[in-house]
């Protein structure tokens, strides 16, 4: 069965304290892995797409990496405005995304 598991469920960071979020997946025929940011009561906001092992994408304080079994979202020197739930999703077929449960990140000043 296709599965997407994110860890940890929640993460509390001090401003400037770098950390990594994990997304492990067991799918047959990965057609892309996606990272989204979701603020409370809002829709997922696209961050990155990764397609093949070894690929890396970077945007401001965020960097996403991909291996054959997992992806990491690294947050470098986070700021309070980086507080959000970060969602990982894999595309199983052409179109359908399967989401993980997310990691809720709180960054305190």
């Amino acid at each position, binding site marked *: 069965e296709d599965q997407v598991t994110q860890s940890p469920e929640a993460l509390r960071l001090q401003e400037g304290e770098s950390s990594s979020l994990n997304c492990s997946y067991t799918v047959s025929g990965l*057609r*892309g892995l*996606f990272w*989204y940011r979701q603020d409370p*009561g*809002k*829709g*997922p*906001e*696209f961050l990155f*797409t990764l397609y093949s092992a070894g690929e890396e994408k970077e945007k401001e304080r965020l960097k996403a990496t991909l291996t054959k079994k997992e992806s990491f979202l690294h947050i470098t020197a986070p700021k309070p405005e980086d507080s959000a739930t970060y*969602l990982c*999703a894999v*595309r199983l*077929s*052409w*179109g*359908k*995304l*399967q*989401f*993980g*449960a*997310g990691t809720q990140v709180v960054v305190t000043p």
Partner: protein
Amino acid sequence: EPEVTQTPSHQVTQMGQEVILRCVPISNHLYFYWYRQILGQKVEFLVSFYNNEISEKSEIFDDQFSVERPDGSNFTLKIRSTKLEDSAMYFCASSGDRDETQYFGPGTRLLVL
């Protein structure tokens, strides 16, 4: 920057009533999707739509659900007879092609009483 819009932002309805959730996808996108997120749970795929046809649907998307593109800009999700368990946030998404990034709207919060 182009974005997906959804109306209404909130909808309260009585069990058994029909609701229609509306979405305006990004204008040059051809693939459209509905997802839902029950409070505190994962975002779940409901249906994908292309060329006026359903491409794929999940087990959740039973006969009570239907989708339509009534004109060149709107994409709708209809729930014929709502149940308490339909209470959730419903997200519309669109992509330019089936292997491209899906961009999500802000969602409609549906509460069934």
